[in-house]
């Protein structure tokens, strides 16, 4: 684990803002796709790919890399934008999202794009795959320092397979597995508390023998500290419940479940018309970029 200086946090926040702008641009160009999740997870994607994980964009198949499994594949615009900004492929290619012939499929396809560890979209199976990776790695080398990171949605926790995988991870004491739950409180049909209540989530996960932490998913330093602590847990798998704001960064989209599966231009019109949604979102993010202060400390 590494302590982040103020300057490093600032750089990561700037990068997350650039990634959010790319997410808006690609969704507008695609004309379909998910907005709330990718914007909400941009800070965590940035932290993982620009600070925490051991990986090499120029050598995506490097054997000693950490593994990242995106279980909720529908938030892939966030992952794609992060991978492009990290150098896996040209940033311009982001604008091919969801188009015919593109490597940026509507949901991730492992063999299409460098940096994608697994195909995902149907919910619940990414965690199982991450468990398989962690098991295989430990089998190969019990002293390995490789970590398997897995991001899941919170709505995704409705899937029975998640709990099958969680049981196995707990049984096998997979210390090298670090799961981050995007606890944004929404899913397509509404708020998670109405569609299928998950609470008490922390207690449920603890009962499955996970080490559980809860953090503000937009506080990059807190998330970094939590990941560092999770890396130090040696007899249990770890879960970090990251409380995030859906559509974080574009205030007029934030916290509204109707932005789950719509791109700017097709979202709810109560606050911004379809025509202006993309433009307003980019303006907002650019203004935020200007206001991110290097010495923004308490």
């Amino acid at each position, binding site marked *: 684990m590494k302590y982040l200086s103020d300057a490093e946090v600032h750089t990561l926040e700037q990068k997350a803002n650039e990634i959010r702008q790319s997410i808006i641009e690609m969704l507008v160009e695609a004309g379909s796709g998910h907005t709330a999740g990718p914007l909400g997870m941009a800070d965590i994607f940035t932290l993982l790919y620009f600070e925490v994980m051991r990986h090499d964009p120029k050598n995506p198949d490097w054997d000693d890399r950490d593994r990242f499994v995106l279980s909720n594949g529908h938030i892939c615009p966030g992952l794609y934008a992060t991978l492009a900004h990290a150098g896996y492929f040209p940033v311009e290619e982001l604008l091919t999202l969801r188009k015919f012939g593109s490597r940026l499929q509507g949901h991730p396809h*492992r063999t299409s794009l460098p940096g994608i560890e*697994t195909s995902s979209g149907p919910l619940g*199976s990414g965690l*199982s795959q991450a468990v398989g990776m962690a098991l*295989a790695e430990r089998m190969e080398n019990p002293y390995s320092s490789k970590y398997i990171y897995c991001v899941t949605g919170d709505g995704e926790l409705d899937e029975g397979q998640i709990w099958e995988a969680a049981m196995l991870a707990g049984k096998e004491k997979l210390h090298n597995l670090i799961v981050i739950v995007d606890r944004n409180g929404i899913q397509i049909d509404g708020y998670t508390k109405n569609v299928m209540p998950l609470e008490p989530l922390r207690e449920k996960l603890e009962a499955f023998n996970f080490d559980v932490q809860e953090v503000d998913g937009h506080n990059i330093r807190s998330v970094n500290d939590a990941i560092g602590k999770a890396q130090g847990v040696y007899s249990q798998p770890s879960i970090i419940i990251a409380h995030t704001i859906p559509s974080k960064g574009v205030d007029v989209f934030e916290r509204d479940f109707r932005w789950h599966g719509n791109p700017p231009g097709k979202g709810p019109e109560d606050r911004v018309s379809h025509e202006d949604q993309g433009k307003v979102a980019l303006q907002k993010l650019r203004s935020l970029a200007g206001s991110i202060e290097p010495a923004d400390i308490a």
Partner: protein
Amino acid sequence: MLANHLQPNLLQEEPEMVPSRNGYGDGLKEAGEKNRNIVALSADLTESTRTHIFAEAFPERFIQVGIAEQNMASVASGMAAMGKIPFVASYAMFSPGRSWEQVRTTIAYNDSNVKIIGAHAGVSVGPDGATHQALEDIALMRVIPNMVVIAPCDVHEARRATLAAAEYNGPVYIRVGREKTPVVTTVGSSFAIGKAEIFMKRNEAHNKKVGIIVTGTLVHNALVAAAELNEKGIGASVMNMATIKPLDTEALEKFAAEHDVLVTVEEHQVAGGLGGAVSEHLSEVAPIRIVKVGVHDQFGQSGTMDELNAHYGMDVPAILKAVDKALA
């Protein structure tokens, strides 16, 4: 004329009876001895799928996932992503029956090097009844891109198919049975993925020519029926189509050209199974009359293997009747 590599006196004596699942168990252990990357997963059916033979030999390479077939499929995909060669075994009804989407997305779409073994396939599992009698698994696996589908004809072929699957890089489905079924091939018989084999050549003295194409453990029934036909004045050949996908289209076209009509035999729904695969191919390149022996849009039920094979029309008299129908 029976092929040389089959059991001697196969049709003169009562055949030796061994469950084909045993071949998986022995083959897996053998494959595990050759390659340390081979791992096995079980969903609480370790002994009955014969995975215990591997688990006892290599406990550190065996994962017990509990009764969770969907998780098992995706965990295997994750292990394959790290370079392992996972074999997952359960009853075909549960894996790949219950885990179909996980098999499609996390194994086949990922092009993962995972092998799926569906044991207790077909009505021959018997008294357990319809809930446990997979009659749709060939169809379910055959429609998934990247997937290889194999139904070995006996214990020896199941062993060889397991070894071949371990060598092959990509997803493979192998279906095996629970009950003791006739041992037709020998330890030394050949097997290659995607290669059909002629098990019996027709008596060329006869004018009428019927080609019987069979997959799985009904092969002995097909051979007995064909031998009777060859004695009665109808030239009957038997082709063992162990690999249903990729279909050996070259051998199939040649076989079709050498016979007047074809009969397919399988312990599976004829829709989407071997009969479907053969019909789909030949209807495009060389249309020929094909009568299908198998289950016709029905569920199974409790009973003995022989009772059920007779009831659903997969025993020797049923094959003879199908030949009559084809030639009529």
